């Protein structure tokens, strides 16, 4: 029974349950995480089983949630905080960037901040404004934070276990449009390193690097390209801070072409950093400039337009064609 097929929502729920069971210092806190089980039901049933003292419905104040989580961490707790939607994190941005990220260094290492901030992110769910954003680059720019994002249920389970065990603040971005995608989770497996990328499809003509919700899109693109005789490798980066540049480099040295795909705006996005570093590392291997596919420099559009804004199969394949044309 070690392996079962779970949705990402259920895998995260199971991971939180495991953490709450194995460490009495683990707390779950956020808006509506208790009785309701969270607006996505990720924390369903946890308050019933672990009590209001450990699964905490908080006031609707994001800075307060993260700020008190810092205080709880200083007292020896390991809070796992939920920010209800990506676009709601900004009231807490000051606490995350100014306090959470810097306090360990400020104390010359004498205190630790094992706080996990879970954020459902990304679009394609037909939502109103502020419910579809991808703000990972805004956090990746800040030293002191670690940023990870699973693309499937198994990673959701294990990466959350590892994030909670980590003594550093970890922002855990959850691909909300994939919440109900089901895949096998082996709860007795030995997980690989939290920040290591994984090759999810091997190929030889070009590397697609993606994370979170775009991994599935890239796999679909690779399958479509295969029908045209193009062999695309797909890397699931899994971690945005740090980025596993060694894995990208190893792939690109073989395929000689790289396209980075994310929902977040391309301008100053994680793809820009990856393009710059891989160009530096693989200059003599590259047959084409590193191309990026992502959101535009525009506010996230009304949902009737989001299919045009978000990278889909065709836009990924268009970038692949352009890279292969060099």
């Amino acid at each position, binding site marked *: 029974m070690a392996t079962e097929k779970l949705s990402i929502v259920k895998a995260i729920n199971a991971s939180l349950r495991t953490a709450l069971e194995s460490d009495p210092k683990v707390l779950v806190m956020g808006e509506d995480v208790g009785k309701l089980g969270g607006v996505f039901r990720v924390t369903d049933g946890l308050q019933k089983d672990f009590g209001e003292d450990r699964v905490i419905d908080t006031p609707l104040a994001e800075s307060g949630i993260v700020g*008190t989580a810092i*205080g*709880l961490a200083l007292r020896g707790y390991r809070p796992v905080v939920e920010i209800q939607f990506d676009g709601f994190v900004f009231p807490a941005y000051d606490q995350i960037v100014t306090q959470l990220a810097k306090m360990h*260094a400020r104390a010359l290492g004498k205190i630790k901040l094992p706080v996990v901030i879970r954020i459902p992110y990304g679009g394609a769910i037909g939502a109103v404004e502020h419910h579809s954003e991808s703000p990972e680059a805004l956090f990746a720019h800040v030293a002191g934070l670690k940023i990870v994002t699973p693309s499937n249920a198994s990673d959701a389970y294990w990466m959350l276990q590892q994030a909670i065990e980590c003594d550093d603040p970890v922002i855990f971005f959850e691909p909300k449009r994939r919440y109900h995608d089901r895949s096998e989770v082996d709860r007795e497996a030995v997980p690989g390193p939290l920040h290591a990328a994984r090759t999810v499809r091997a190929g030889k003509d070009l590397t697609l690097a993606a994370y979170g919700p775009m991994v599935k899109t890239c796999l679909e693109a690779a399958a479509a390209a295969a029908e045209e005789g193009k062999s695309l490798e797909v890397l699931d980066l899994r971690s945005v*801070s740090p980025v596993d540049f060694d894995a990208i480099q190893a792939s690109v040295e073989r395929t000689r072409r790289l396209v980075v795909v994310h929902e977040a705006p391309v301008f100053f996005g994680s793809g820009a950093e990856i393009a710059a570093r891989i160009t530096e590392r693989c200059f003599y291997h590259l047959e084409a400039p590193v191309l990026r596919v992502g959101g535009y420099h525009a506010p996230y559009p009304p949902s009737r337009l989001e299919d045009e804004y978000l990278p889909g199969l065709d836009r990924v394949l268009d970038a692949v064609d352009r890279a292969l044309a060099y």
Partner: protein
Amino acid sequence: MTVDSTAARKPRSGKRAGAKKPAAGPDKPELVQLLTPEGERVEHPDYAIDVTPEELRGLYRDMVLTRRFDGEATTLQRQGELGLWASLLGQEAAQIGSGRATRDDDYVFPTYREHGVAWCRGVDPTNLLGMFRGVNHGGWDPNENNFHLYTIVIGSQALHATGYAMGVAKDGADSAVIAYFGDGASSQGDVAEAFTFAAVYNAPVVFFCQNNQWAISEPTEKQTRVPLYRRAEGFGFPGVRVDGNDVLACLAVTKAALERARTGQGPMLVEAFTYRMGAHTTSDDPTRYRRDEERELWEAKDPILRLRRHLEREGHAGEEFFAALEAESDALAKRVRDTVRTMPDPADTAIFEHIYADGHALVDEERAQFVAYQAQFADEESN
């Protein structure tokens, strides 16, 4: 926005006499005071305190040494040994009174001006100077004295204190937590959110607001339309205004507030009504925004002078005590001076230290690049 309607109406009616004590009721003064500026002991119905002569001398010594340390730091900044200093001049009673009210197992979350509280907690004064000299961002172990690092962004620490207090309550401990902040920070959303969380979870935290009348150049009127202590009422816990230049009142009120927190009665707001006698920091020039007359008015209420008057009036301390304290002050000042002047710069690789507890590949990569880059010059120098 909530503005007390009676407070807003009173100026128009021309009847301002009653406005001085609106919330405390007709029988109680608005300001808790136990020691007048003339050094006379007075009683307050809610806050009795019994202090021995030895304890009085102790409080006096704390305030004198803190002021001397603070003055020495200002001088060291003027001499170029510190990049900046935030003086506590005038706020000694608020800090020593509240600081001495804490127990060892209580936890303190300061701003960047709580040198007197740090002194009470047993943090060596020289440890406070590293961040102002630029050798670190906080040079002490917070858990050694249950005294958190100085927080520069105003108000943030009110939430950390509240979260810590929520943890204390979860642990079933009978400790309390105290969060320091100022009149300027009272406008920060984080302070309001801390009030909300503390009230909702009945957290054992005392919010100690030193209203020193000035947030750099902005007077308290730019922060609030009601006396700050009355903000607590709207959040559902008591607030009290104490004479912040009266060390006994600050001690008594903070003790009562901490005891309240320890016994499960939840948070309390203490507004210590005091005055920032100096500049905001050594970079500030108060002559641009406030008048000397105001400072002179507050000089007459000096916290140290009033306790000295009391000690002398009651015969609790004589010339010998004051002379010995003067010598101790000189010795402290010399130790501070010597320590700062010989304080070494950190190794340049300290840039990359303690960013993460569990490491980070990019930090490792950049440290290696930095070391290699620096090594080029070492080779050139040795050749």
